[in-house]
């Protein structure tokens, strides 16, 4: 039984990882159609760096801004929802899952209709950021809200008030620390989603405000297969270590 479970786990892992690994491998072969026999090279990686370094920097920057924005918007909103009872807050909470089902392209079109006429915002990276915030905010909100609900925050806050704590003192001293697991989980998700977001960004981005995944698509569409693959490799090298690090930090803090 345990052997079977182990085998299934292995198969699932292979199913998930092999395509990514193959793609990454292709990035270091001199010519994919000749296979390994064609020899290895770092030429494609250098080329990717030349062509797309700006998308990598922009992606990191947008992920950071997106995290800050969703923290500033999502945490207070979750707090307000956790404290209120009744029909309306419930409804709001239900509605929050909706954007997940709306295709990213539709969201992007909506944003273009809404914001498109505002100055020359369409050529500014802030426009992509807005798209990312719209997409990731529900994740931050829900993760934080779940943590606040599970600790019976309302009673804890009443206890803090009875101890004499004013709003700022209880928010910083009791509310935030007791919701930190949710806030951290939400933060990780926001960063990961922002880094990988493609659907909405594809429509919102211009050649100068391209994020990493859009750059990836661009390289697949217009360059040699090896360059696209090299980009995958760069993507993995850049994204996986920070995400693992973040996860480890989050685990530590949450304990």
């Amino acid at each position, binding site marked *: 039984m345990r052997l079977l479970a182990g085998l299934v786990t292995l198969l699932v892992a292979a199913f998930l990882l092999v395509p990514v690994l193959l793609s990454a491998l292709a990035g270091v072969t001199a010519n994919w159609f000749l296979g390994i026999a064609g020899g290895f090279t770092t030429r494609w990686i250098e080329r990717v760096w030349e062509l797309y370094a700006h998308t990598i920097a922009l992606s990191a920057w947008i992920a950071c801004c997106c995290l800050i924005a969703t923290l500033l918007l999502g945490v207070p909103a979750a707090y307000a929802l956790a404290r209120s009872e*009744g029909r309306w807050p419930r409804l709001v909470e239900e509605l929050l899952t909706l954007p997940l089902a709306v295709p990213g392209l539709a969201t992007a079109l909506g944003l273009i209709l809404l914001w498109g006429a505002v100055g020359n915002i369409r050529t500014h990276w802030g426009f992509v950021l807005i798209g990312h915030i719209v997409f990731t905010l529900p994740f931050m909100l829900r993760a934080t809200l779940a943590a606040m609900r599970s*600790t*019976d925050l309302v*009673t*804890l806050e*009443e*206890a*803090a*008030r*009875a*101890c*004499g*704590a*004013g709003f700022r*003192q209880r928010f910083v*001293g*009791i509310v935030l*620390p*007791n919701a*930190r697991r949710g806030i951290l989980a939400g933060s990780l998700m926001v960063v990961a989603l922002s880094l990988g977001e493609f659907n909405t960004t594809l429509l919102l981005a211009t050649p100068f405000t391209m994020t990493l995944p859009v750059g990836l698509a661009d390289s697949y569409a217009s360059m040699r297969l090896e360059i696209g693959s090299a980009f995958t490799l760069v993507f993995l090298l850049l994204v996986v270590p920070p995400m693992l690090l973040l996860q480890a930090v989050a685990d530590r803090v949450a304990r």
Partner: protein
Amino acid sequence: MSISARLEACARTFADGTVGLHPTTLDFPAGSVTALLGPSGCGKTTTLRLLAGLAAPDRGGRVLFDGQDVTRLPVEKRGIGMVFQGYALFPNRDVAGNIGFGLEVRGVSRAERDRRVAEMLRLTRLEGLASRRIDQLSGGQRQRVALARALAPAPGLLLLDEPFGALDARLRDTLRGELAALLEALGVTAVFVTHDQAEAMALGRRIVVMEAGRVAQTGTPEEVYRRPSTRFVGQFLGTLNHLGQDRFCRPEALRVDPGGAIPATVRACFFEGGRYRVIALPEGGDSEITFEIAASPPMPGSRLRLAVEAEAVLRLPA
């Protein structure tokens, strides 16, 4: 240090129209220990929350501390201490962090805070647990941390909602004794909620019996037990024997007496350690009566006569 509190024509209606408390006026003199006693849902917590300022009374009600109107004063400015029904300890802080929180938010210096926390730890017999996490404490320890946290800033009014609610019977007894001694020593005005009449009588110098959002009777434990004003109060505070019509008596008002006026048949007899509790059915009566005897328990089915002290008979109209 301790203050007097007063609820003046305070009612509380919830958003859904439920009336938690009908207009009520209650006085809590400085240094008094009052028990709010009543069955589940009678409005005990509601009353306590009005005193605390966690809920506002309906229009027209006023809350007074030492004669000052505090109706509009938020909880955090009222200078009270409160022990919550489930303790509501802060999971993100250790024992000392919980106890010191009230001092911290008042801006008390580090040194003074440490001194005071150590004093509270000693007072509540929690020495050595200062840096324990909350989820590593037993139920009794949590209760004491909650008490220490409420008392640390030396409040003028201490409010306790079912302070022993979640504890087993033996522990309740121990902690009840500790709390009584502590309240005595501190002289703080205290109001505590309970649905356990034994606890109310053991701790409260004064008992407020509540029924369905109203005060049914207020008095010393002796008064409410010996002279209940309604059948409900009489029954809630202990066993009440129905002697026919509007006449009632407590079990200890009855004794076995060959010349007694009440012939009865013994139904059951329970040994309660120290004495026997006998349940009997009076001849021609339809409700069983209970009395206690010290020795020689009667056999079920046997007949005996009971006498009742005339001055112990309670007249309680329906």
